[in-house]
């Protein structure tokens, strides 16, 4: 996958899209084959180590830290890029304080960018679903990922929110983040993706730019009977 592109993975239910995500992010260990990122083999690595390489993700079912505030959720996102240990933090050593202030500032900025700053001090559990998805993305972005995996980010969003999501993805692309997207919303996928890969039963059946995919016979066959509009 070339950097700075948006690639979408589509396919019917059970095609293996989420499994692919779990493999890439280290939550599942592959039986065979290799996973490469930036030239390094990352299969079999624990999830936190993969994340430390700059691969961030969101989840099909939103996974926020419910008891933390909106702001704190994003602050945890900065974990990858910060260092202060337990002692330094608990003793409020100057470098830990400086780092914490920076984390807080960056998190604020991230929240302002997605328009969640007004809710910064609410517990994350109190947000409506659309905003939860937004927060999850903001949290993942706070880790300044090189590769961002979005697992059905538009599900549960209304059209306006979906449109804002699309803009956000394009904006990320402009900033050089590589995005891997699993999505059922075809109009969103067609709008933002540079490339689309179609999976069915764990097998890659087609790959290419959106226009070509739309006309691919095997893809149409796989989707027959589902709401496929393009």
């Amino acid at each position, binding site marked *: 996958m070339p950097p700075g592109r948006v690639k979408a993975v589509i396919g019917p239910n059970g095609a293996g899209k989420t499994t692919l995500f779990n493999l890439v*992010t*280290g*939550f599942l260990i592959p039986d065979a084959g290799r996973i490469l990122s930036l030239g390094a083999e990352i299969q079999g690595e*624990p*999830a*936190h*180590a993969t*994340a*430390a390489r700059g691969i*961030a*993700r969101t*989840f099909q079912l939103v*996974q*926020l*830290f*419910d*008891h*933390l505030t909106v702001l*704190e*959720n994003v*602050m*945890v*996102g*900065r*974990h*990858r890029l*910060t260092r*202060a*240990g*337990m002692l*330094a*933090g*608990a*003793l*409020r050593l100057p470098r*830990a304080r400086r*780092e*914490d202030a920076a*984390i807080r500032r960056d998190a604020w900025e991230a929240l302002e960018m997605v328009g969640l700053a*007004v*809710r910064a*001090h*609410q517990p994350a559990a109190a947000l409506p679903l659309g905003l939860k998805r937004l927060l999850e993305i903001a*949290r*993942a972005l706070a*880790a300044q990922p090189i590769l961002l995996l979005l697992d059905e980010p538009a599900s549960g969003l209304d059209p306006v929110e979906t449109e804002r999501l699309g803009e956000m993805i394009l904006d990320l692309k402009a900033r050089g983040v590589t995005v891997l997207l699993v999505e059922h919303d075809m109009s969103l996928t067609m709008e933002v993706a540079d490339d689309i890969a179609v999976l069915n039963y764990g097998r890659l059946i087609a790959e290419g730019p959106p226009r070509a995919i739309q006309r691919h016979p095997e893809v149409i066959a796989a989707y027959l009977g589902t709401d496929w509009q393009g």
Partner: protein
Amino acid sequence: MTRLLLNPWLLFAAGVLLVPQAVTNQYYFTLLNIIGIHTILVVGLNLLMGYAGQISLGHAAFFGLGAYTSGILTAAGVVNPWLALLLGLVVSGSAAFLIGIPVLKLRGYYLAMATLGFGVIIFIVLVQGHRFTGGPSGLHGIPSLSLGGFPLDTPFRLYFLVWTCVGLLLAFSANLVDSRVGRALRALHDSETAAQSLAVHTARLKLQIFVLSALYASLAGSLYAHTLNFIAPSSFDIMFSIKLVTMVVVGGMASIWGSLLGAATLTVLPEFLAFFQEFEVVIYGAILMVVMIFLPRGLVRGLMDLWERRHRLTEGGTTPG
């Protein structure tokens, strides 16, 4: 102005300084010292239970390791009490580390059962190891601490040391949970998966906090040994571990100040209520069940939540910005 007056740290410091003015009886100072020691234990356990969402049913064992390391080494007069205290920390910390490695990788149940077993074993060792521990009848003749030549040999003198430790550890804990590591800790409690996806090394973090809470317990144990000058295994049995869990639950999980409250309440009540002593075990069991069933965020927090909800209903429900 009110904000300044209600600053919990100022209130705490004022309380610690003012209480000696009102209390004269040495018995009450002993009780206050015990409350302080329990608070240290409960804050440590709360870091593990309330914040990281892991449980230890054998915390009395770490308390006991600290107490007996201090007790054995100082009663024999081999070692300076402060050095013994440090050695106690090393012993407890290593024990927690060794147990933590295998069990923290697994689900919470394993940790609970393994710590329960560890508690039982340490208790057995304390009873069986007559030669060192004095067996069931206990270990006598533990000297008092002294600070720069000034002996802390009365409950009143020790009071300031104990409560300084309490204050420092409360501050340490409050800072910790509000730091980078503390946020990661609370995050893994809510969703371990999501925390991992953000590069939080959850297994290591759980181990760290488990060891830290064992260190708190060990420190409390050493202070306890020097407070009473006598220790016996019965103070470190499984029931005591469960009492500690109850204190956490009553004070509120994930609440630093609640730990102080929970420790104080459950230390003071049995002293003054005869029926509490008689039915102690049943009462602790009932508290654990009722609070966790109906107010899983703890008694104090739970009641506050309930009050707030009623308040909001009557006010007409405004969302705070």
